[in-house]
């Protein structure tokens, strides 16, 4: 995939560039702040951008603001945000953004190289990728009339993985069950959460998460 990278720590930026190159991705530009990310994205039109949240000059949410702007200006570009910690506000802002091609990972997840690359592939393929930790936090937020209370433990597991952006096949692989079993669980979840059946896994992730964040 063609990737533009924004990360202010030279150390991590170099590491990411090497990693992505080793995995056969093409890094078009690696920059250190939000403005440079915007101009590099405009110039190269990559498949996916990977960006840190805290970058110069203010070290608050430059990366995220750049990411949201890229979402609106270049909707065809996938966005994968790396955050230092779970920021519900950011996560929800990205999640409520329809159309997939979006991911929100904890920065530490990069150290789990396999998971990071997997998330990048999913976002590049038009899907979604949310950090398990982020999902856990968002799921934990449903204290009011807990709709998840109706789910079985197995269904919760499936929802958890679904929310991270995994496909039914992926979920089946992770839980060591058959694809049809997963499909059954998924349908049952939609029934219990009173969600309309939609096709395309990114949209169902967004729908589920939006429902939980409401």
């Amino acid at each position, binding site marked *: 995939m063609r990737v533009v990278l924004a990360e202010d720590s030279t150390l991590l930026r170099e590491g*990411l560039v090497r*990693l992505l190159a080793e995995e056969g991705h093409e890094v078009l530009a690696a920059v250190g702040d939000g403005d440079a990310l915007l101009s590099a994205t405009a110039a190269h039109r990559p498949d996916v951008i990977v960006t840190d949240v805290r970058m110069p000059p203010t070290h608050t949410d430059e990366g995220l603001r750049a990411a949201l702007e890229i979402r609106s200006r270049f909707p065809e570009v996938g966005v994968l945000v790396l955050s*230092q910690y779970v920021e519900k506000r950011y996560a929800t802002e990205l999640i409520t953004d329809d159309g997939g091609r979006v991911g929100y990972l904890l920065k*530490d997840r990069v*150290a789990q*190289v396999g998971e990071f690359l997997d998330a990048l592939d999913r976002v590049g393929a038009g899907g979604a990728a949310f950090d398990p930790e982020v999902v856990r936090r968002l799921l934990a937020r449903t204290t009011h009339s807990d709709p998840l209370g109706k789910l079985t433990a197995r269904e919760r597991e499936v929802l958890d993985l679904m929310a991270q952006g995994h496909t039914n096949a992926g979920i089946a692989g992770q839980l060591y069950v058959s694809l049809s079993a997963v499909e059954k669980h998924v349908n049952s979840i939609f029934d219990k959460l009173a969600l309309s059946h939609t096709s395309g896994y990114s949209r169902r992730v967004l729908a589920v998460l939006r429902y939980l964040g409401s």
Partner: protein
Amino acid sequence: MELSWVRAAGRGTAGLAAGAVTALAESIYVVAGTLALALPPARPGVYAGARALAELERRRLVRFFDAENGDDYTGGRALRYLGLRCVTGLLGAGVLLLIVYGAVSAIIMLGQIFSGGQVGGGSEPADWYDSITIFLFGLLLAFIAVQGLISVAKLDQVLANRFFGPSAQELLRRRVSELSITRAEVVEAVNDERRRIERDLHDGVQQRLVALGMLLGRARRAGDAERAAELVRQAHEESQQALRDLREVTWRVYPVALDDGGLHPALEAVAESAGVPVHLDFGLGERPSLAVETVAYFVVSEAVTNAMKHASATRVDVSVHRTGTMLSVRIIDDGRGGARPAGGLSGLARRVAAADGEFTVDSPVGGPTTITAELPCG
């Protein structure tokens, strides 16, 4: 807002009027009393009377001007005060009389204008601009009169301050307000430091660990053994670096050396780990309290860090000495100067203020920068 200002002006004017009345009594008393002082037996009485009058004045200032003063003064001092006070009081009386006179004149002239007569009662026919001239002139006089009132009120308070000094209560109030400010500043300084620690951990140590994890992850995915071994070697180095970073962060959080050996070894460690030559002149015999040592330590370490980071200094001189009950810390660097006390040094200023110390920064553009902290240490 407006209303309170008007109210204060009204109260002040009433206070001046009261002061004018007392001034008449006081001037008589001062003259008589001073003559009576020639007779030794009459002296205690004269002083007691002077004190009573002075107390009356003190109460008047509190009542009308919220100006508190102490009441620990002698009869002789009271009499001397009255001698000067009756002059300002009579001055106030003069200003008030002028205002009354001006007001009455203004009313009469207004009457003349409305009745179509001559303004000022002259026999000449009035020119068209006469009333304007008189109006402007009246405005000028009114302004001067108000200024006069304000000045007399000020003089009154200055005199009282000069002779009586601030009251215990006033001193207490000042101290309390000073303490509430420093308390708020300490909280702010602590928050600043926590923010800095958070940044140090996130932007330093955490990044290193993520990079380390990435190297190991790449090593595991590497196809050939040689590449994997090379990546593991890099990861090993990275882990050493992460440890060094962590040590540095914890050291910045709290230098343990302070607890063990005190300020001297802790400052030596600062000097050794600085990237530029730091010359330490340490002249303390016995150890001050740990609280004072901690403040002094942070002043030096922050100032040295700033000198390196922001001023590109090539040499820093640090001196720590005790003069009487004060511990004085001075840091001079030959960097480019232009450091502002309001900038990165504000945290230090707050720390020093919280310890009742004095913090000064002298940093002309082009350098050199001198940072001084004077800390009371009993």
